[in-house]
């Protein structure tokens, strides 16, 4: 029925999430707190980039879509475009996103829709991302006083971007409210085990609610795109 246009919206939304978060994680290369995390963060970034390439290719040409769209045409969640901050901030972002992505891909993999093949492969990668984020949330939350404080602050800061994840995306057949309550429960459980307090603020501000999916982004995003797209745009039509 709506086989062409609707999956395009969905493919772009999911593809943009993966592309943008992968880019942010790529910024860690050479800056991680320990060598094992150089490997782990790059590994997660690569998985996400692989997902992004499949998803963007479903919607069109991956490079045109990644490099030639303006900020207002990107439909990623505001959560994934948030700057890395410190390691706790990066981990909190990973925890929130990978938990969501894991739930979503599990549903998509089980359903018989156009995203099932991708989701079936990706859900395995994302299970690893989620585990990595949870393990670090525990270590940082239940580590030293300093790490506890940083992790708590990171969780609070990013909390207001988490509501957007459960705004229904056209063409994605998922139980959004069910997924949201599972997410709140799962993340809450990890935070409590990490001796952290589950943030109490709203999960969506007036601006953050559904904004990224409509191409409304936070200020740092434009700068990120400028860096990402500069070389490609400087050589129109060139192949690499």
């Amino acid at each position, binding site marked *: 029925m709506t086989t062409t246009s609707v999956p395009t919206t969905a493919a772009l939304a999911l593809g943009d999430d993966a592309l943008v978060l992968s880019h942010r994680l*790529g910024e860690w290369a050479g800056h991680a707190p320990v*060598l*094992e995390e150089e490997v782990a963060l790059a590994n997660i970034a690569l998985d996400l980039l692989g997902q992004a*390439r499949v998803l*963007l290719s479903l919607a069109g040409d991956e490079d045109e879509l990644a490099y030639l769209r303006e900020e207002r045409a990107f439909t990623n969640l505001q959560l994934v475009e948030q700057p890395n901050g410190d*390691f706790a901030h990066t981990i909190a972002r990973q925890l929130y996103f990978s938990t969501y992505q894991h739930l979503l891909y599990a549903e998509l993999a089980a359903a018989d829709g156009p995203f099932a093949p991708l989701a079936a492969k990706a859900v395995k990668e994302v299970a690893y991302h989620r585990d990595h984020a949870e393990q670090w949330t525990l270590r940082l939350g239940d*580590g030293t006083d300093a790490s506890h404080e*940083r992790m708590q602050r990171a969780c609070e800061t990013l909390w207001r971007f988490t509501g957007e994840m459960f705004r229904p995306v056209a063409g994605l057949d998922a139980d959004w409210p069910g997924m949201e309550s599972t997410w709140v429960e799962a993340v809450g459980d990890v935070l409590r085990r990490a001796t952290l307090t589950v943030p109490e603020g709203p999960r969506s501000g007036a601006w953050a609610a559904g904004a990224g999916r409509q191409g409304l982004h936070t200020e740092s995003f434009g700068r990120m795109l400028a860096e990402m797209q500069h070389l490609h745009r400087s050589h129109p039509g*060139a192949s690499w």
Partner: protein
Amino acid sequence: MATAATHQTARTLAHDSQDGTQAGVDDTAAYERAFDAAVAADERVEPRDWMPDAYRATLVRQIAQHAHSEIIGMQPEANWITRAPSLRRKAILMAKVQDEAGHGLYLYSAAETLGTGREELLDKLHTGRQKYSSIFNYPTLTWADVGAIGWLVDGAAITNQVPLCRCSYGPYARAMVRICKEESFHQRQGYELLLALSRGTPEQHAMAQDAVDRWWWPSLMMFGPPDDESAHSAQSMAWKIKRHSNDELRQRFVDICVPQAESLGLTLPDPDLRWNEERGQHDFGPIDWTEFWDVLKGNGPCNEQRITQRRRAHDEGAWVREAASAYAAKHSASGAGRGVEQA
């Protein structure tokens, strides 16, 4: 094999002496003879074998420097991850930088079998007491530099490292087998990147040529000083840590690169480079050793920047490592009765 038996004797003797028996001068001479015989027979020296102190020290220095090079070497390439011009290239580059971190980990592990620790080695890197390859003190100014590093820098590294797969020290040799496989993959990718540029638009071709012009001579310097100025060469060759001299390997590299440059459609920046029929090798122009020693002393274009970034990553990550240790201590104390050890 007789030598294996002799070496085994040395092994046993060494263990006896660790058990408290005093190893006299005669014993040391016996270990030394057994060690020399084992090395001469191309046997692998393993972590628990007796080995001369100087052999151990040389290996620690070389493996650590090698590990540091992998870690510092992530920086010039990571510099382009966020600007890679296509998603395919970005994925390749990320995978490569990830591999380098992995190589660093293998090599620190190999060094640790000699009785040192990663923390100690990193500290020596951060305080300038141990070096890393001088090549990484050059900046990556354009995207084509990523290709030039793959083709030339990794190419030089492979030429240097393939013989190390037969190095007399087992853990190092085995690490090199794994590393060389991945490095040759990177090298082909770098070559392919340059080929795409060389065959691309005139601007892309110029970008590729400029990168090769800037990376050629520093790559030749990766083989180290000329044979008559190389401090460690003779001993390392006698111990079979090193299999070929700096100049031999450099020559081999030049001979490999010339035809590759031709098929790339790029030139090498050396007016004296020509085939020498008599030698069956290429003649090439003089290397600027002043620049080499200057970079080695810390005065290259990026020495300060590279080490500052490494130190900053380490320092800013201290709270994360402390958190991980604190968490591990708490949770091992409460489980499996390991708290007893701490009492």
